[in-house]
């Protein structure tokens, strides 16, 4: 039985001690190359394109909240200068209109926020302004869901969300930019 003994000898295990080193090497490689890429951003829905010019809807001016951002990154809100810091509160006040003022939206469902910019406006400013407008809507929705269901909008169920969406729809229209101050 010399044969079996030699086969027994071949059963010798491979030394697994270096396995950890190999794994470590791979681990370090992946650690270095990993960028846990979180792509986040402001989600918007663009209006569909149509070749016909939009029909001139007779809009009650009290329901339109026009925001203009010019090529020097200045804000003009309903014909008046405004700082970006004040924009959110002004928008909220306009949409909710708690004191039923005559120059603000009749109902949140009728309110339209219109954002217009020049071609020379910096993208950063544009996004900051857009963000403020969206934040105003988010806060209003949160307040509404807090009042109705006692929790924040993002924790609501689908039906509850739909209900709030009906009361406060987000209407931010991005108008075609005017052609001032583009880079040449």
């Amino acid at each position, binding site marked *: 039985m010399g044969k079996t003994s030699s086969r027994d000898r071949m059963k010798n295990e491979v030394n697994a001690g270096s396995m950890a080193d190999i794994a470590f090497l791979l681990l370090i490689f992946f650690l270095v*190359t990993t960028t846990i890429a979180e792509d*986040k*951003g402001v989600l918007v829905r*663009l209006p569909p394109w149509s070749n016909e010019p939009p029909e001139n809807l007779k809009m009650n001016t009290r329901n339109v909240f026009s925001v203009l951002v010019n090529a020097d990154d200045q804000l003009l809100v309903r014909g008046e200068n405004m700082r970006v810091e004040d924009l959110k509160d002004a928008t909220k006040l306009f949409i909710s209109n708690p004191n039923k003022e005559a120059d603000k939206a009749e109902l949140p469902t009728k309110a339209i926020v219109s954002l217009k910019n020049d071609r020379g406006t910096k993208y950063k400013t544009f996004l900051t302004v857009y963000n403020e407008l969206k934040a105003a809507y988010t806060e209003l929705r949160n307040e509404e869901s807090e009042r109705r269901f006692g929790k924040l909008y993002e924790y609501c169920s689908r039906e509850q969300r739909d209900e709030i969406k009906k009361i406060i729809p987000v209407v931010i229209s991005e108008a075609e930019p005017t052609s001032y101050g583009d880079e040449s």
Partner: protein
Amino acid sequence: MATFEKKRGKASPEVSTASLPDIIFMLLFFFMMVTVMRDAELKVDVNTPEATELTKLEKKSLVNYIHIGRPKVAYRDTYGTKPRMQLGDKFATVADIPLFLEKHKATLPENQRQGITSSLKVDGSVTMGIVADVKTALRKANQLKVNYSAGKRVD
């Protein structure tokens, strides 16, 4: 005293390192899963602005990326310093957008196509002119779900 030393000498317990490879492998697999290899090298400088109202893009395969920014220093001799758009791994113009979107669409099954999002990664210092042109092109191509990529602002 002597007994003391003897006791110590006897008990020399080593921690078993046999499970070390397993632990390391587990970590390795974790990092292999979360790693995303950059598929396209960026040829434009993109420093996205910061915002608070952020939505996370969930499904990577449903997203196509449009980068807009000034060309990196290495490409300035050829492409100048005016903001340019990068689709995939090369510079492109607005006219290339429909084909780019169509190519991405073709890789997906029919029932997922309405969930396609375009992620606009735009440098903060770029003016809105080129962004407006891209937006118009996207609307014409009926790609209406758009995400303005932005970092988280902490205030």
